[in-house]
């Protein structure tokens, strides 16, 4: 009895530990090139993301934040150190780590539905064509693009394209969602409505998310934690800021929240300070 209870606790502990470091980046260095053109992008990055957590990574351009995301995606491999997701070492890209690319990266010769189907087909290769079509349509509907599902990406606005990118990523049914400056190329108004849409989707479907951004408001509005990176080369994590604002969040409520301005100020102070250092 006693022994069994102990092993049960041990399993639970391990599960809890596993969930606390669902994404586990430890001691990661990343170097590009060799000889004189060698570039030290990341110099010892440690970061743990819990299951269901929304973490933003913010920093000046060239600070290696996209490199970090590509390492989790498996598009790059660390020079030293390790990256693991759900206890499994990352050695190659996979459906369990779906990426929403900054440049939306839709295949321009495929319709909206077919672009989403690309992910669905990979998740359910053994299911019937009808099932996969229905599944893809569900995700097109999730981003409210059903009336446009037969259009080619070239016929869509920037915001719509990025919504297809988001639908495709969710359709892959990933364990971790990687957003690489997903709204960076959009105008301010579209960006706001896309952020609202993303929170709504995320609230109903709490995926673990790692998002790269350089928009402070976006980071505060969406994240549970914000990771500030130092300037490159040899970037490290400079600071981690918790965002204890209750969910579901709305923009109006955010303005009332006492934490909001404080966090915003803290982030801006850091970014402006490092910006001067970088310019000098």
């Amino acid at each position, binding site marked *: 009895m006693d022994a069994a209870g102990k092993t049960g606790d041990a399993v639970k502990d391990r599960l809890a530990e596993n969930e606390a470091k669902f994404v586990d980046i430890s001691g990661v260095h990343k170097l590009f090139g060799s000889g004189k053109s060698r570039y030290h992008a990341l110099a010892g990055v440690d970061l743990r993301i819990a299951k269901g957590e929304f973490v933003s990574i913010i920093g000046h351009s060239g600070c290696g934040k996209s490199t970090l995301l590509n390492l989790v995606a498996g598009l790059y491999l660390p020079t030293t150190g390790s990256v693991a997701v759900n206890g499994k070492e990352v050695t190659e890209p996979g459906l369990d780590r779906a990426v929403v690319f900054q440049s939306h990266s839709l295949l321009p010769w495929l319709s909206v539905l077919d672009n989403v189907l690309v992910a669905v087909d990979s998740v359910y290769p053994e299911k019937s064509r009808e099932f996969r079509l229905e599944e893809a349509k569900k995700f097109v509907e999730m981003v409210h693009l059903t009336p446009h599902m037969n259009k080619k990406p*070239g016929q869509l606005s920037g915001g719509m394209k990025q919504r297809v990118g988001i639908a495709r990523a969710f359709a892959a049914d990933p364990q971790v969602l990687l957003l690489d400056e997903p709204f960076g190329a959009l105008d301010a108004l579209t960006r706001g409505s896309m952020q609202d849409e993303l929170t709504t989707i995320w609230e109903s479907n709490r995926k673990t998310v790692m998002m790269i951004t350089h928009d402070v408001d976006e980071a505060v509005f969406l994240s549970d934690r914000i990771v500030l990176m130092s300037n490159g080369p040899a970037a490290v994590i400079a600071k981690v800021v918790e965002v204890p604002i209750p969910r579901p969040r709305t923009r109006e409520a955010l303005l009332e929240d006492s934490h909001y301005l404080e966090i915003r100020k803290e982030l801006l102070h850091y970014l402006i300070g490092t910006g001067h250092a970088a310019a000098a």
Partner: protein
Amino acid sequence: MILNTGKPAAPAKGASPVAGKNGHSIINERPKPMMAGLKTVETKMKPKTAPAAKLPPPSEDPERIARARERAQTLIMPILAILFVGLFWELYSSRDGVVLPGPIATIKGSWNLIAHPWFDNGPNDKGLGWQLLSSLARVGIGYSLAAVLGVLLGIIIGKSVMAFKALDPIFQVLRTIPPLAWLPISLATFNKADPSAIFVIFITAIWPIIINTSVGILRIPADYENVAKVYQLRGSRYFFKVMLPSAAPYIFTGLRIAIGMAWLAIVAAEMLTGGVGIGFFIWDSWNSSRMSDIIVSVVYVGLIGLTLDRIVAKIASLFGTRGD
């Protein structure tokens, strides 16, 4: 390729008064304010000045007139140019001591050839239609082989660094060899005229196909490669959904250059190999001093070459459309 080329339809139409689909979609989205707006305008206006009266009748629509004028110009100008060249040619030919027959003499002298392209008086005396058809058949076989093998080899050297390093220097040398230089080797190998001519077409057409295909494969944008990696597009799905559509514009450029070169080469090759075919027909006409027949044949060669080019370009435009 990565530029925004995908929205040519949207802007221009909205401005024009006869805005077809675009105007409609706006009305569909917000029908009430539009209708309300129209009504208030109508009640304020006198019944005689209906909105339609303000628009010019279709025959006076300036945009339509401009378009008709443009169309007439693209039709009339080439005809004028042809007439001018013909006149110049006729004047030149009518001078003393000029062997070249003028356009009128050409049509008179070769009327039998122009009017009856499908006559057949045995293997040595066939109409121009048959001559062109047998040349086209040779080009068809040689070019098809070159297209299939060229695209395959292009994909291999585009995808494999090893294959590229091994084969590229060889290809760079071989592609500069003039088509006819291959003919003796080809004749020695095949011992027959027909396969030798087909081989010359094949070897002429394959280089631009290989080189353009491999460049197209090498230039698949990193974005698409990343999508393929993350969303696990492999094997045939990668081939048909990423690689082929991405490289298609390059492949078709190669195919289009190749069809032009193949048609250039066939005339020369046939002059040397003989038999039925437009090349040998021209050579034979020269040996029998039938100048007007040569001129008619050359015009046909040009027209067929243009048609072949347009056909490949048309197919390319069906596949090569890509907006981002």
